[in-house]
């Protein structure tokens, strides 16, 4: 039996290698994203000269910490086969709410949990619409987006400056190591990525997320807690949006109700570029992180070049296109089998 297998192994690959390849087939899109990231960095260095410096690379994390957090939450939702359009607006809402509360003298120890809970509540409402009333995720999260945006303006119509030292510390305190630097916001973002990856890989909840994305009906037949898991996925996305609101407030030093317009699209694009299938069931938080870095690198390179920032969206759109077409081909090929 095993001898037969060795014989028909392609290109003389041993069964071990081949086994590894089939085991890890779902990582291929992530590796592709990593390849693109490296290519971008190398191309940036060769065109711009001083691109691959500790300063630029460190600020990649610093500038995109909020997006990284959003992408982790979005990955949970997309893995279930859903989508969450509300994240940008929820970020704006929690940020302005936080700024308002802080300006009225509420201590940050209270404000930060309130921001997180605000995000969680909106996520729960979206999830309930989807789960209990059969509303399509697109429409339900759209309602969440409208609601959050409106609430943001209800809190304040104009920008509110943040003077709370704790929040500002998150961004201004920089740990330096030989030219590299890291702010607490970056630490938070990386912790969220790590937590997301661990939860998805090592908990029954995480595996149920994948199961739902694979086939919700089958997951239900297997006796998995589908309802609870799906609700929780949207709550996680909401909490991530709230946390991103905290990080974004620190980054901007202010809350502004118009923040984060279009951020949901950047987030979705980053997640898809990171190799997560929009049909659900396949993808990794690590991939989403790479997707965010691809996004950040393009943005950084374009500002380096002094070119129009509009090129960022165009490039991201083009990359997104390439990825969905490639994904489509992969899916088509595997369904033929």
């Amino acid at each position: 039996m095993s001898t037969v297998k060795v014989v028909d192994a392609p290109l003389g690959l041993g069964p071990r290698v081949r086994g590894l390849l089939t085991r890890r087939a779902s990582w291929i899109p992530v590796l592709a994203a990593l390849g693109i990231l490296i290519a971008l960095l190398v191309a940036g260095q060769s065109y711009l000269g001083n691109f691959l410096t500790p300063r630029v690379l460190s600020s990649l994390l610093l500038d995109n910490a909020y997006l990284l957090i959003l992408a982790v939450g979005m990955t949970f939702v997309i893995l279930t086969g859903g989508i969450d359009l509300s994240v940008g607006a929820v970020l704006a809402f929690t940020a302005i709410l936080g700024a308002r509360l802080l300006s009225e003298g509420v201590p940050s120890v209270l404000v930060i949990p309130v921001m997180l809970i605000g995000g969680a509540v909106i996520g729960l409402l979206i999830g309930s619409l989807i789960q209990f009333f059969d509303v399509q995720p697109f429409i339900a999260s759209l309602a969440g987006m409208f609601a959050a945006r409106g609430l943001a303006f209800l809190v304040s119509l104009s920008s509110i400056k943040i003077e709370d030292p704790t929040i500002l510390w998150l961004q201004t305190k920089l740990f330096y190591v030989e030219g590299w630097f890291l702010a607490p916001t970056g630490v938070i973002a990386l912790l969220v990525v790590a937590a997301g990856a661990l939860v998805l890989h090592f908990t029954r909840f995480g595996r149920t997320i994948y199961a739902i994305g694979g086939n919700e009906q089958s997951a239900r037949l297997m006796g998995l807690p589908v309802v609870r898991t799906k609700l929780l996925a949207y709550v996680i996305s909401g909490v991530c949006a709230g946390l991103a609101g905290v990080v974004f407030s620190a980054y901007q030093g202010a809350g502004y109700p118009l923040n984060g317009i279009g951020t949901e699209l950047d987030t979705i694009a980053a997640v898809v570029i990171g190799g997560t299938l929009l049909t659900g069931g396949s993808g990794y938080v690590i991939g989403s992180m790479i997707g965010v870095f691809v996004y950040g690198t393009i943005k950084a390179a374009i500002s380096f070049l002094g070119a129009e920032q509009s090129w960022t969206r165009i490039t991201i759109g083009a990359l997104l296109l390439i990825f969905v077409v490639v994904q489509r081909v992969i899916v088509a090929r595997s369904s033929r089998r």
Partner: protein
Amino acid sequence: MKLRKLLTHRLVLPIAALVVLVLINTISRPTFLSITVRDGQLYGSLIDILRNSAPLMLVALGMTIVIATRGIDLSVGALMAVSGSVALTIIDGSGNPEDPGILLLAITAGVAVTFAFGLWNGFLVAVLGIQPIIATLVLMLAGRGIALLITGGFITTVTSAPYRFMSQGYVFGFPFAFYVSVVAVALVVLIERRTALGVLTEAVGINPEASRLAGVRSRGIIWGAYAASGLLAGLAGILYSSNIMAADANAAGQYIELDAILAVVLGGTSLMGGKFSIAGTVIGVFTIQTLKSTITFLGVPPAVSPLFLAMVVVIVVLVQSRRVRAWTTSAWRWGQRARTGTEAAS
């Protein structure tokens, strides 16, 4: 019996919603329904609604057809920005912004570009088989960037009386933009219902595979729907830029894809595709425009208006959801039974 049939007609809810809105407005501001005549031109809140709803009307018409095929077009707002940018850049560069020939060329070019983008969306969906949300997300992301590139990153402004006429001018007492709406609605109805396109589109939206087996050219129908949506969005972009006499790549058509989807759903067309109602969409558009006018009148900052839209979305989808329908029918039956019960007792 007849009354019940009338009450279950699918346009009843949308019309009722519109009537309620109009009533609220009339009560809270008696001038709402009044129309004044100045220089043979009509003015008033209702006329404003007719005029301002034109871009949304165009976009929502295209969206209706796309949704009927089980799709969605997120790129319409970005395409509005593109067509406005193309048109105004041409007018700006011509040096003769009042020349009707130049204007015609500019408008044609703007709409042609978005038509091409619509074809592109259709290609991704119908030929490559990519999910509509994602396929059109690509242009939603990239479209505004392209518009910004066309205008060189600035807000291009022009002064051209004929161009301005499209949104501000009057013909026979009514705003010109209103005629654009009427013609667009009439054309779409004519094309969909006087030819077989409408019923074939519905067939494809309800059951794509069965339609294919029956020999329907579903690929062409889906493709055409996105192309039409691109074309209509382009026209809407022209109207929008004419209203502000500027090509603002960021503000043009912002959130209009959401308003349009909402208008379509309000009009009773299901997001699952299939049966669609142009009349419903028209009512939906007027409802949204009236709602916006109401919000402005009530002194709510326009920025907060999304909150109201959110409530409307939630109410509409809840009314459409199976679970709530089951609740209401069982409640109705229960009430019915209780009534017959008391009748029997008495």
